[in-house]
């Protein structure tokens, strides 16, 4: 059976998780659409990228600060990459939100589970950057 504390946690999660998911999803979609619109001003660049992908001859490994600077200058590739990062933030953000809630409620078992998932996501990103 659910305890009172667990029911309270579930109620907060059911209220805020959908809001969090939808907000980040919309922001990411807007950034991606904006990037695609910018890309139409560089059609040859896009076609080149498409063929490079077909030949698997690309390594899009700019650092986050580089991406921010280039995106601010209106570089479509950097804007779209930021949009893709924003999309992958969706699960990260909702796990982080759950983690903070469980910390507040001192629900130690679920602090452990969500911390493990968060660590896994971050370690994966770091290992990917190294590999």
């Amino acid at each position: 059976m659910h305890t009172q504390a667990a029911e309270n946690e579930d109620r907060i999660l059911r209220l805020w998780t959908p809001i969090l998911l939808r907000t980040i999803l919309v922001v990411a979609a807007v950034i991606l659409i904006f990037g695609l619109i910018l890309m139409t001003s560089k059609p040859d660049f896009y076609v080149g990228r498409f063929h490079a992908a077909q030949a698997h001859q690309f390594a899009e490994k700019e650092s986050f600060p580089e991406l921010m600077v280039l995106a601010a200058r209106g570089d479509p590739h950097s804007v779209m990459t930021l949009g893709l990062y924003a999309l992958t933030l969706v699960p990260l953000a909702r796990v982080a939100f759950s983690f903070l809630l469980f910390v507040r409620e001192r629900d130690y078992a679920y602090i452990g589970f969500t911390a493990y998932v968060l660590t896994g996501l971050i370690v994966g990103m770091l290992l990917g950057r190294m590999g």
Partner: protein
Amino acid sequence: MLEILVGLITLSFGAGLVGALSGLGGGVFIVPALIIAAHMPMAVAVGASLISVVATSAGASVAFVRDGWTNLRVAMVLECATVTGAVVGALLAGIIPAVILEVLFALMMLQSAYFTLSKQDDVLVEHGDPLARRLQLVGDLPDDAGNLAHYETVNLPAGGALMVVAGLMSGLLGIGSGALKVIAMDYYMHIPLKVSSATSNFMIGVTAGAGALVFLARGDVSTAIAAPVALGVTAGALLGSRILPHANVRILRQVFVVILILIAIEMGWRAIQGI
């Protein structure tokens, strides 16, 4: 440029639509669509698919979480297993030859086809095992008469073990592995099918997100492909989820099983040719 862009968005819109109508998610269809129709290498298709799967999972989860179908505690416990598998899978995907990945993909499609045909009625458990009770992996769902039916869960270790495999396949192949996740929850842990499906969909975001982050950080995601694919698949999935309540699900399932088997044969044939 516009022809390529419109082609990619249309292709991914179709994959998202079929993925939502079949209940298997867009990944199972977008990976072969990108490989067969857009002539993309497996690694590029997997990277783009992982990101689009995150988007469709988030889009569909909004309603499922709000309406109470998703069991959030079950998801958070089992995500430990899927994330572990997904990170290992995504790291291995950069090493394992494409031929092996294509064979694995074909096998996963056949497994999804079998799963689609063999869905059975729920067997609810009123008293879960001690571990599941301690973690409060319980819930209520409305039955046909509108009353709330209480359910508890069992076999968490077995379900968790299968979730590691589901995560591994997700990271390797760019799919949500929804069919495996539902089997773990429905068959092993006796979670009602609708709850299993909604919870699986919610978990897919984290599983695919773990793989997507590895691919993005490694520089293995082509933005020129992933951006239009993510938008197309999400739009297709949103439309599919609106059509689904009015569709004849039994006929749709049979059609999709045929499509899955045909794609599995095509992917298997490509793998044989690549050996």
